[in-house]
């Protein structure tokens, strides 16, 4: 079904069950943050895991999605779903321009171009009037869905976040397992051969890039609604680095890997917060351990152990 293998269907069912049950056991706001970053990581994984493009500036699309959605909710009073769609549009539009420039080069040059462009976005965010500089956009209202379904209750907005997350997750899964996705994987494996087979690889790459940045923007838009703020934190290069770590830890090129990665990273950040610098220390140690000992990531290793692609 929809390109899901049987083990993947089981995993999907487990994930949905966890999403439904979790807010009654854990703190909903924390779970929503995890889902926002999981969606962001899934979008990033679409590029690095399936096209082999390491975009090192993905926070730019996530962060601008945050800003635009927050601004729309606060200053224009738009409803929640329009804010998230605006976040998607912002990420996609930015991705179309940046992608068109960056995909002209491969490998490290591609990564550096995306990083440079992302730093320009950061600079824009510190200077532009509408972003509020280093104070960010504060006290963003939780806009109602369709203009009348109130999101004040944590469980109500949790449902919205869960729906958008699952929608994005299924969309990415669908993209990967479509004929289009097969071509992407062909490009990842051997780009010259894909060209020789007659595919216009740059068009495919750009399309994948725009899809990825659009979903990242939507994840950002969602996050600003949940927390009621949009700040510089989300456009920094550190945020770009963290999403690379998240995806790597969960498992590059696995469907569920980025989700697990987001769970682990956010849990660390959340529960180690009282211990100060231990957050960054622990993240560093985990990153080293992951690269040295289990390069396929948590889900990748697990999949290899039980011999199924998750």
């Amino acid at each position, binding site marked *: 079904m929809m390109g899901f293998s049987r083990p993947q269907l089981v995993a999907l069912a487990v994930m949905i069950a966890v999403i439904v049950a979790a807010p009654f056991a854990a*703190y909903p706001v924390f779970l929503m943050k995890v889902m926002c970053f999981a969606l962001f990581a899934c979008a990033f994984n679409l590029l690095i895991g399936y096209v082999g493009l390491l975009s090192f500036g993905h926070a730019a699309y996530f962060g601008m999605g945050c800003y635009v959605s927050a601004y729309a909710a606060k200053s224009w009073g738009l409803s929640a779903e329009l804010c998230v769609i605006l976040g998607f549009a912002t990420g996609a539009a930015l991705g179309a321009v940046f992608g068109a420039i960056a995909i002209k080069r491969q490998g490290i040059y591609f990564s550096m171009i995306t990083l440079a462009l992302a730093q320009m976005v950061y600079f824009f965010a510190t200077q532009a009037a509408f972003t509020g500089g280093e104070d*960010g956009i504060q006290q963003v209202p939780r806009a109602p869905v369709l203009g009348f379904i109130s999101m004040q209750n944590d469980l109500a907005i949790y449902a919205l976040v869960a729906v958008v997350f699952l929608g994005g997750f299924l969309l990415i899964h669908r993209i990967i397992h479509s004929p289009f996705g097969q071509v992407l994987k062909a490009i990842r494996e051997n780009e010259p051969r894909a060209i020789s087979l007659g595919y216009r690889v740059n068009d495919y790459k750009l399309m994948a890039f725009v899809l990825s940045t659009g979903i990242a923007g939507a994840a950002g838009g969602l996050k600003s609604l949940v927390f009621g*703020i949009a700040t510089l934190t989300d456009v920094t290069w550190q945020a770009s680095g963290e999403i690379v770590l998240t995806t790597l830890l969960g498992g590059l090129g696995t469907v569920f890997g980025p989700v697990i990665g987001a769970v682990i990273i956010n849990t660390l950040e959340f529960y180690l*917060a009282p211990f100060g610098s231990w957050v960054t220390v622990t993240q560093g140690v985990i990153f080293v351990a992951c690269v040295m000992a289990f390069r396929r990531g948590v889900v990748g290793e697990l999949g290899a152990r039980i011999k199924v692609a998750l």
Partner: protein
Amino acid sequence: MNIDRLNLGRRALLGTAAAASLPAVGRAQASGLKIGVLTDLSGPYKDLAGPLAVECVRLALEDYGAAAKGMKVDVVAADHQNKPDVGAGIARQWFDQDGVDLIVEVANSGVALAVAGVAKDKNKVYLNSGAATSDLTAAQCNANTIHWAYDTYMLAKSTGGALAKAGGNSWFFITADYAFGKALQRDTTGFITANGGKVVGSIAYPFPGTTDFSSMLLQAQSSGAKVLGIANAGTDTINTIKQAKEFGITMTLAGLLLFISDVHALGLETAQGIALTDSFYWDHNARTRAFSERLKPKAPAARPTMVHAGVYSSTLHYLKTATAAGMGVMKGPGTEVVARMKAMPTDDDCFGPGSIRIDGRKIHPSYLWEIKKPSESKGPWDYYKPIATTPADQAFRPLNEGGCPLAKA
């Protein structure tokens, strides 16, 4: 018969469940107060706030004799990592789940504004000391927040206005090119010109990432201005001052946001002669010395900054309000607690007698200091000598100029 028994069983079960849940609710209400110290435990503001701020809360509890008065107060602390979303997330969780009634401190304006928003949402209490932004009592003010130790307006007015009056009448600015730096320069310029001074030039440098200030310093020197206004913060300020020393800049340096912990890090040899504003100095009078003496056992190597003093003073006032108003009010809506706090005059060893304005601004005098020469200093942390005092009624932005909705009501 069977059905009856079943019904009875179910009812008994419900009854048991209700009975089991009741004492839990009762306990939660009688469990006293919980104070959350949200601060920077690992980053650039660790020394001016950080762990010592947590100790200041504990000292306030001891000085007030909370335990002896039968008041049970728990203290929790967390690191906001200077990320507004992390800070807002912790604040939300504290209010939602951990039963925190009051959040104090929060050094970092972005995080502070976010926490003020959460406090308003959840109708709890937030007493800020560490953040500088005067927006907290302007357009973004709310009835759940009090801004305690200082703000950007106070710094600009004292350093700009009082220094211009004291003879520093021509200025050159080195400014970090972002909202905070520009606001600081704009506000300070206003006070300089209002006091008969003038600004002969300024340079904005890219933020963050600038570490070499030499060309700007030389340009400032050649402008002939008497005062160099340093409109930045943290490590940028430290770098500017160090390089000014290395280049032998002879102007008076004015640090617009400089704490005694920064001065300690710089050392008197480098920092001597700088003018700066603090609303609290540990060696200012008998009461501030007594406070610092009491804090000493908790941190022998450090002296409190005005942020630490603010944390102490605000916690103490909160406890006094708790005694006066009773637990029923303190566990109720935050707006009511804050209203009671505003109604009561403040008095403590750090800031002396003071008051809290309707827009949430704590009112006390501010002081302009000059950093001593190494030869004048009698020992470690003997750093400041007074230049000027701005009285309490003039130290902060007039109530009607901030645009706080509370002030209009």
